[in-house]
């Protein structure tokens, strides 16, 4: 009879997850440039885009730039996809990204196509986004993303994207 391994202490598990998330976010200059942050609850990620004046597209309204919204949703989609792709190895401890330099991080999924629907004007407020992987294949993956501001039931944008997954890690 094989004995079930003793579960790791919660602090160790959380530290490994958070260190991995920090390493993945910090490695991408464009994510820092836009000031996007990620909050993690278990394996669920929420993208946060704190409002800044230089994210405005139309200064008369003022409204968030449509490109910022597209970028925010795409960043959230890629991060969520990459997170789920690495999750198993992070959980098993096979992969530890703490302190890993950007060049040594696992390769990122590549965007094939991304479609954004703009449902409401992006207000000069913080924005939030969550992505759902609708298909995770070995080569291709599809993701849906929702973006909202003050009220989650009133999305300001939604998007669908198709991605090319990196080659299997050895």
């Amino acid at each position: 009879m094989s004995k079930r391994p003793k579960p790791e202490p919660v602090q160790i598990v959380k530290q490994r997850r958070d260190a991995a998330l920090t390493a993945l976010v910090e490695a991408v200059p464009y994510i820092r440039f836009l000031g996007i942050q990620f909050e993690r609850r278990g394996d669920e990620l929420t993208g946060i885009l704190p409002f800044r004046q230089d994210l405005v597209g139309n200064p008369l309204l003022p409204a968030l730039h449509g490109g910022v919204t597209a970028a925010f949703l795409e960043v959230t989609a890629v991060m969520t996809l990459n997170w789920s792709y690495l999750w198993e190895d992070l959980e098993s401890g096979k992969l530890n990204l703490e302190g890993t330099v950007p060049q040594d991080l696992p390769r990122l999924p590549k965007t094939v196509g991304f479609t954004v629907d703009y449902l409401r004007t992006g207000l000069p407020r913080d924005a939030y986004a969550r992505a759902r992987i609708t298909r995770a294949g070995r080569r291709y993956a599809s993701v849906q993303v929702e973006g909202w501001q003050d009220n989650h039931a009133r999305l300001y944008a939604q998007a669908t994207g198709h991605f090319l997954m990196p080659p299997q890690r050895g």
Partner: protein
Amino acid sequence: MPDMTELAQQFMTTLPHSVLLGMQAERMGDGEAVISMPYKDELVGDPHTGVIHGGAVSSLMDTCCGAAVMCHPDNKGGTATIDLRIDYMRPAAPGQTITAHATCYHFSRSVAFVRAVAMDEDSEHPVATATGAFTVEAKR
């Protein structure tokens, strides 16, 4: 057709995010716009290769498509994006300027339809293409 290039450059300086990304209007008029975005380290999306993030290309495409709508002869006011689809053909070469060219090919009473293509210094092979629908302000 009056030369609207100077006006276009002026217009670009009023868009905070486009200024942040360093976009420059090359040409604008008659429902067509050409906007360039020089390479910047801050825009990198893939730390392995130094390739610009797709999101920055999306911003360039959205700005360029919006500009094409703004300068369409039938347009009387502002515009906003209804939807925008971007297909990425290949990574843009690191270090090179990306230039988008958008054409507003149909302008109805309420919706303007636009397509765009983005190139780096290799003008034979597109980096990305986009199609979008934009709002048209009601005539007063």
